[in-house]
């Protein structure tokens, strides 16, 4: 097996759904909502993407449908966990199963087929060649020719990173996650920010689903997310809920999946290739073990700071913009 542009290409393609979902998960984590419904929300997005593309005859119609459906789906979590005080984990487990059942049910009733729906007339996302870049050796074939959503995911990383670290919205969001009472007392609506985080994560999962069902392949099959949403949950943990960290964690997963797929062509049993990303994420989690993991406060520190001043100072960065916002 050789490390070539094609491998990077397929790694980036495998990364995209995980990356979108993990960005959504990171936003929720920062807002203090433990969102493990990424898997089900992404699956909902996959189905809506295929249905949307099929009925509008345009891949972008599918993307729009995926974003809307997944946002709506995640609204259940927002209402349940944020407004009604239900346990987020229970709601998420139910949502994941609801997505599997509902998409299977709709596949039968809407498309009249079982297992997989694919059709030559189903429009997928067209690859985009980046002018100028395509002719550069190695970099060109690796980075150019992806679906537009792949590039959008990179933009999303940058936007999320800047938003979280520099924009007042991001600072308030982090404040809501780290010290809800403090944020509330400063007039920041905890409910509103948590709703925003959960709904945005829904939209991002919709994009993840659209990329999976219309970009990586052009079909819908039952349970096609196959654990990617859970990989995204792990990516959030590994990446400490930082957009760039999430990107790196996702890249690791993408590379392992691409390498596994490549080795499968060279005689590796398919089951070993299937298991590889999960084993890899487990190993990575194991290696990344830090005391910070033990108390589940993944997002306490944003940048290395002297430990003594860290804990007392962390409400401060959030406080300034909160105050100025009033």
């Amino acid at each position, binding site marked *: 097996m050789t490390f070539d542009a094609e491998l990077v290409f397929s790694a980036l393609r495998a990364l995209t759904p995980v990356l979108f979902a993990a960005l959504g998960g990171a936003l929720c984590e920062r807002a203090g909502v433990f969102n493990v419904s990424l898997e089900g929300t992404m699956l909902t997005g996959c189905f809506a993407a295929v249905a949307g593309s099929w009925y509008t005859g345009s891949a972008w119609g599918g993307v729009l449908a995926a974003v809307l459906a997944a946002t709506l789906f995640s609204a259940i979590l927002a209402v349940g966990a944020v407004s009604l*005080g239900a346990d987020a984990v*229970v709601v998420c487990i*139910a949502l994941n*199963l609801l997505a599997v059942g509902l998409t299977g049910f709709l596949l*039968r009733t809407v498309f009249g087929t079982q297992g997989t729906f694919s059709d030559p007339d189903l429009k997928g996302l067209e690859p985009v060649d980046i002018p100028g870049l395509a002719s550069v050796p190695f970099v060109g074939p690796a980075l150019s020719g992806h679906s537009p959503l792949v590039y959008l995911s990179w933009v999303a990383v940058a936007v999320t990173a800047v938003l979280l670290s520099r924009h007042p919205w991001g600072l308030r969001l982090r404040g809501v996650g780290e010290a809800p009472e403090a944020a*509330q007392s400063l007039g920041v609506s905890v409910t509103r920010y948590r709703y925003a985080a959960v709904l945005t994560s829904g939209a991002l999962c919709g994009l993840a689903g659209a990329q999976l069902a219309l970009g990586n392949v052009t079909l819908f099959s039952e349970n096609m997310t196959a654990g990617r949403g859970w990989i995204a949950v792990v990516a959030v943990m590994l990446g400490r809920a930082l957009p760039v960290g999430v990107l790196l964690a996702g890249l690791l997963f993408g590379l392992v999946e691409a390498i596994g797929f490549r080795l499968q062509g060279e005689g590796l049993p398919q089951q070993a290739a*299937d298991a590889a990303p*999960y084993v890899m994420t*487990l190993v990575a989690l194991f290696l990344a073990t830090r*005391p910070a993991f033990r108390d589940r406060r993944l997002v306490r520190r944003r940048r290395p700071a002297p430990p003594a001043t860290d804990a007392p100072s962390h409400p401060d960065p959030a406080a300034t913009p909160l105050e100025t916002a009033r």
Partner: protein
Amino acid sequence: MTDLTDPTRDGGRSPLAAAAGIARRAVVSPVTVSIAAALLLGAVILAATGAAPLTAYQAILDSAFGSDGISDTLTKSIPIVGMAVALAIPLRAGLVNLGGDGQLVLGALAAAAVGLYSPFPAPVTVVCALLAGVVAGALWAALAAVLETVCGVPLLVSSLLLSYPAVSFVSYMVRFPLLQKGSGIPQSERLPDGVRLPEFAADGGLGTGVSIGILLIAAAAAVFAFVEARTAAGFELRMTGRGPRFAAYAGVDRPRLTLRLMSASGGLAGLVGAIVVLGFPYRLTDGALTTPGYTWTGLLAALLAAASPIGTVLAGFFFAALTVGGFGMEQETAVPQQLTQVLQALIILFLAVRTGVFAKGGRFRRRPAAPPPPTATAEDPAGDPADPAADPAPALGGR
């Protein structure tokens, strides 16, 4: 308003009035209301897709409890109730074991391997195969517990992530080393004659196909119920479920508790896998344990019962009936059987948002001081501690 009348009824000497009070409370319990709400929403979904809701529900009932269906329901109860009890064990202490699939298939693989290659006589082999299943499942689950307690990976994630490689490994073993030669189906060789769990006689009123594995599951549930209610370990378990911090303060060794609960949970899951392999068709088939989603149905059943031992068995039986009924409904009315999966998920969703029982000790303790929405206040009396169904409140904060 029911809650206002109930105490007076219970206070009266008449047992009839007390029974009426209990019945009344059962009717307005969050569980009943959630099931009703889910059925109602399911009916809306059915009507929206052009099917007749009542006909569909009638078909579910008929095929689950009809003369032909009841033995199917009992057979399906073995894995579903088994997994429900297995997952309820840690859930009672607020720990979520999402790795049931891995523990289940590893137990099945261990049992199949022992069954095929054991040099002992058949009855001994059956016992060895069951034990091997228990050990395999328990070890795999214990690994997830160690990952949480030593490495700090949340149990929810560690158990689930371990599940995928296990499922892949078993799939590989079935498709290559254990594959039955000459058949196109990915299944192992048939277990030797006699290496199987006996079935109840066809004339016994239960119909055929129900293996005595159901007694093993019942025994496991009884042991769980006894340990939970009557022993010191059970007290620690319940205390941790209701208040993890209080339990820690009271001296409960959480890592040790996690390890024991996960081992018990995985062991029972492995036993379920072994029982399935030792029942008809007496072989391990790839996907036979994971495709029907026993783990997830079982987890939902455990959540529905808030992991109380007896309640979990009843909920598991209910979901098994729903699953079997779904297949019958599909044959009779062409409504896809996935509907029952949707119904199960909806029941848990309604339950979770309606009672708020699950919220206690959860991540949202620090909710804003904003006045809670009117719905939540109105429902609060239902989550009253006097309500038997609202009792256990596993604080699912333990991740």
